[in-house]
């Protein structure tokens, strides 16, 4: 049961894109109610957004007390200006336009920036730099693959509509699910091959060795399971290996990239590396990483926002480390944070300027220095651009029957303008080469 829509303000809901997670499903049925073809997470997000839309409530909160937007922006400027070192994070909640505005602020303050991309927290460095990645867009996967291997993952849990929307349509497409007992995508005819989670890198290595004709370890029954996988690959025209990111160290990612690369030298093949899905901190994780990369040269964990090339410190300058070590004394976050970071921030007592979805209850971070500003969710915002997890550009239409509250991009632009006018001219970052 979804809450009623504030019909007085809403004639028709043009939103076709769901911003509840980075899948950015762009096939929502437009109408005057919550789209029924959204997943449960999407419907909840849509309903919450509609319920908050136009509902009375504060524009912002300062130290837990309701406030008007101008006062909150003033307080936010004070917090950011007085900090010795600022961290800008939670970028995935905003559109590309909002992320750009947040990065402008970070450059003004010479702040650290963490988009939240896995490059920043893998202890051993970015996988792409060690092994590369061989990938395809989701639509390409759907069109071409005739063998899909779900590698220790069940996308239906992390990306509820992924199988419905993107599973290949070829008549003779085979699907294989590799992993422990509890992993089983609900696909008719899907072959189950049981391998324990801890053996995932070894399984990739064994299949790789079989395909490359290398020697094999003496490890039955792993050998038998891998032989079946290798035989399926041998018989396929185009192989897709679907993975879901759950690997803070990078060994699993490294091993699967090598396997895909070996297959791709023999026949069309690619990996479909799904991200955090509904567990992600925001829908635009890929867009945030893209802007961070073209501005600072790294997807995340940038020690200092400098357009001529930020200092990239994976596992050193990610948000969690910076907060835990008290290396920052003010955090500007554009949206929700992963639970460990949220907890660390609460425990630290570090000043926070948070942009929250309208309707969100400011239960946390009611410290003296906390500022929270209510923003329209991206789905009901001023429009803009996001990047899906596979890099496809998704355009959000402006929501015409808008509430009086601004979107994140607008708030950040106003904040940036206020900071620019109040900061000393010499205080800027972003030096030229």
């Amino acid at each position, binding site marked *: 049961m979804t809450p009623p829509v504030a019909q007085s303000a809403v004639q028709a809901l043009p939103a076709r894109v769901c911003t509840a997670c980075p899948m950015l499903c762009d096939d929502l049925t437009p109408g005057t109610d919550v789209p029924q073809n959204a997943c449960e997470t999407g419907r909840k997000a849509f309903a919450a957004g509609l319920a908050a839309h136009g509902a009375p409530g504060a524009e912002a909160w300062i130290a837990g007390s309701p406030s008007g937007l101008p006062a909150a922006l003033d307080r936010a400027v004070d917090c950011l200006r007085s900090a010795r070192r600022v961290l800008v994070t939670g970028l995935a909640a905003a559109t590309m336009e909002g992320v*750009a505005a947040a990065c402008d602020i970070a450059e003004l303050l010479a702040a650290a920036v963490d988009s939240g991309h896995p490059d920043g927290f893998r202890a051993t460095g970015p996988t792409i730099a060690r092994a*590369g*990645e061989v990938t395809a867009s989701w639509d390409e996967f759907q069109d071409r693959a005739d063998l899909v291997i779900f590698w220790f993952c069940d996308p239906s849990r992390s990306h509820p509509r992924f199988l419905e929307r993107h599973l290949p349509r070829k008549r003779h497409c085979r699907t294989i699910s590799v992993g422990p007992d509890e992993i089983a995508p609900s696909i008719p005819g899907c072959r189950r091959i049981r391998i324990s989670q801890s053996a995932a890198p070894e399984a990739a290595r064994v299949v790789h060795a079989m395909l490359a004709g290398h020697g094999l370890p003496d490890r039955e029954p792993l050998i038998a399971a891998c032989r079946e996988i290798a035989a399926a690959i041998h018989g396929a025209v185009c192989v897709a290996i679907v993975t879901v990111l759950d690997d803070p160290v990078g060994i699993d990612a490294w091993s699967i990239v090598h396997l895909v690369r070996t297959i791709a030298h023999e026949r069309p093949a690619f990996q479909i590396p799904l991200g955090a899905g509904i567990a992600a901190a925001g829908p635009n994780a890929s867009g945030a990483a893209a802007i961070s990369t073209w501005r600072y040269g790294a997807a995340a964990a940038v020690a200092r926002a400098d357009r001529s090339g930020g200092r990239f410190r994976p596992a050193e300058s990610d948000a969690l480390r910076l907060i835990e070590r008290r290396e920052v004394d003010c955090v500007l976050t554009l949206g929700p944070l992963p639970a460990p970071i949220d907890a660390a921030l609460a425990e630290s007592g570090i000043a926070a300027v948070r942009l929250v979805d309208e309707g969100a209850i400011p239960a946390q971070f009611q410290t003296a220095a906390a500022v929270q500003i209510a923003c329209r969710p991206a789905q009901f915002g001023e429009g803009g651009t996001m990047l899906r997890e596979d890099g496809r550009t998704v355009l959000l239409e402006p929501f015409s029957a808008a509430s009086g509250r601004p979107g994140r991009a607008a708030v950040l632009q106003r904040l940036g303008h206020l900071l620019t006018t109040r900061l000393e001219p010499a205080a800027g970052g972003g030096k030229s080469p």
Partner: protein
Amino acid sequence: MSDASRPQPGSAPRFLIRGGLVHDPANRPDPFLGDIWIEDGRVVEPPADETGFLRVDAEGLVVMPGGVDLHSHVAGPKVNAGRRIGPHLARRLPAAVPTIHATGGLYAALGYTTVFDAAIATGAAAIAHMELDELPILDKGVYLLAADDAAVLDSLAKSDDASTRRLLRDAISGGRGWAVKVANPGGASFWKHGRRGDHHDLDTPLPDHPITPRSILQRLAAAVAAIQLPHPLHVHTANLGLPGNWRTMLETMRTFDGLPAHLAHVQFHSYSGGDLDEDSFGSGVGPLVEWFNAHPSLTLDVGQILFGETVAMTGDAAAAEHLAHATGMPWMSHDLHLEGGCGVLPIAYREKSLVHAWQWAIGLEWFLTADDPWRVVLSTDHPNGAHFTAYPALMRLLGDEPFRREALARIHPAVRSRSPLGQIGREYSLQELCIVTRAAPARIAGLPRKGHLGVGADADICLYRPDPDLSRMFALPARVFKAGLLVAEDGELRAVPRGSTLTAAGTGSFRADAR
């Protein structure tokens, strides 16, 4: 008239560049001592009333138009992948693939004021433009890889020329493109639907369309000419990087049969070797340059390699896979739906490597044996062959024969003995260097206000200190003006204006209504 040796940065004053040795090959065959008058960001006639014009003393300096990089890779998803795939290269100064802001600053400090990204997938055009909007100082444009679009391939396969023209026109308008690029004609189909490891010539039918790469080239070139894009079809032909690919390049040139076409990074397509040549890997430039010299409808950029570490990136996924497999380097590849894809990997060019030494010599052989500098563009296919900041070193190799001989002495001995480079005494003059870095790329790209200093030209102007060391001279312009603004002085940025985005739809010639 006021005397002002240094116009204030950040403003576009009326001013006069006085007494410099002006190289303006588009308007004068020889350099001359003269004055350049500037107003509202353009070159103007000497005014009747000189009041209010500042004076920039250029006596003893060389004056040239701003550089135009016709073929580079500066923005878009694959460039971003290039930034991530080599963190060790990102820490260098300059980074192998600089940030978008650093790219603008470094180009400007070098005297370049216009750049084109030569390979943007049509589906990635929006995000690429978002990034390019943050590229400071330079005017910029993109070539769209529309030839890989499924609908375009369908129309080509059906010989439906009207649909091809309409689709290209729509792609250029929607993607705000400047030109159409083909990266390995039909290559995306072979990559996605063919057997890996197979190499195809121009007459091998595509696995999923009843058409050959040769037909794709012919029909695309005709369509681009029909819709009157400012720049002809930009051609990265098949078999990039493979031994014996000089034959593919020769067939490519023959295919156009009088149609205008621009041949991209020819160095990577001029190798002898393979099954059909007696010797192993070597130079196939001889027959290619002979054909090129005799066919004025063709133009080219060289794609010179210079020794060092860099990142290779291409819309030709098969070429990237071949290179990745040969080198074992980390390799990034992404296939796009209804379009092509891309490949990215780090690469190191070494003097003592036989293959790399040949590549170096082959690029220089092209420069030094092509007769007409007006049809030749200096490029390294940044960052594929080398970083764009290496252009001054390349200019010295072209203009300083003793320096080139010293460099030749350091490379692999087999190349020293077999390459004709040692027997070529040609040296590019400053005027010729001005042609291949400014006048020719502007003319070939279709930029009537760039690459020259005549009345009406954009006031994109460089002042250089003459120096027998051409590398030092071109690496550090005394001053660089962009649209009349002083943007760089002795390598330091003085202003960071926004450049313009160059789109074919913004030109008079593009036939948006072509049917």
